[in-house]
């Protein structure tokens, strides 16, 4: 249970799931610790990639293609998120000098 065959050798699905979890946790750490808004966006991309790995690992284990289709949708959403997020960032940087996400705290009131 939980293994599948690749070219004659057995791979364990839980290895892929664990790697996905570690990458997702790394992305979370980056979002929490880093202060440059650009790097926070990069870390979100890292988290989305980790989720894709998990989806595709389950897709292979269950031999069900829907996981891969869902991963494609995730990629589309990630691309849209990167485009809009970077456009917002460029707009903010053009108006004023921001070197830290803490400089963007006007909504705090």
């Amino acid at each position, binding site marked *: 249970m939980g293994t599948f065959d690749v070219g004659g050798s057995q791979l364990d699905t839980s290895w892929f799931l664990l790697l996905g*979890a570690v990458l997702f946790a790394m992305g979370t750490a980056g979002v929490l610790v880093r202060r440059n808004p650009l790097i926070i966006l*990069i870390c979100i991309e890292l988290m989305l990639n980790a989720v894709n790995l998990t989806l595709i690992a389950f897709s292979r284990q269950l031999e069900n293609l829907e996981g891969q*289709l869902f991963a494609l949708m995730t990629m*589309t959403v990630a691309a849209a998120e990167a485009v809009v997020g970077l456009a917002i960032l460029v707009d903010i940087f053009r108006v004023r000098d921001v070197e830290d996400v803490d400089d963007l705290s006007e909504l705090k009131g």
Partner: protein
Amino acid sequence: MAVAVFFVAALLAIAGGIGVISFRQPIRSVLSLVVVMLALSVLFLLLSAQFIFVVQIIVYAGAVMVLFLFVITLLGPARESGRGRLRFQAGLSALFVIALLGLIYAMFQGVHYRQPEQADLAVFGTVQSIAVGLFTSYLYPFELTSVLLLIAAIGAVYLSRKDES
């Protein structure tokens, strides 16, 4: 053989992930993320997802990362200021991340896999099988993603236009 490929790609991905969150200059973070994406694409190939493998390299490592690089060239090499205003932020974040990882790991311990659906592995994950899925049972969500991309493109153009007034 496949096991060795898995471990090399996994180590590369983790090393790249550490690079993403620890390099000071954004350009190095972006290049580390490219390493992560290429390593993950190798893993996708191991998971017999050939089409996703190609899409990952072309769309992600190619297009999205080039977008990030363009923005970095546009904004200049901004370095991070050393300390933030919140004390204990790093410590609390580390605690939270370890708790999150522990929770996910505990969740994996309880996973019971269903019986595989005995799909035809000769065509599993090829362009043909992906296309059959996308254009039959998932046609509606597929069309919605095109609308999503159009909205994103219009939004980006709107946000980055010059003020005429």
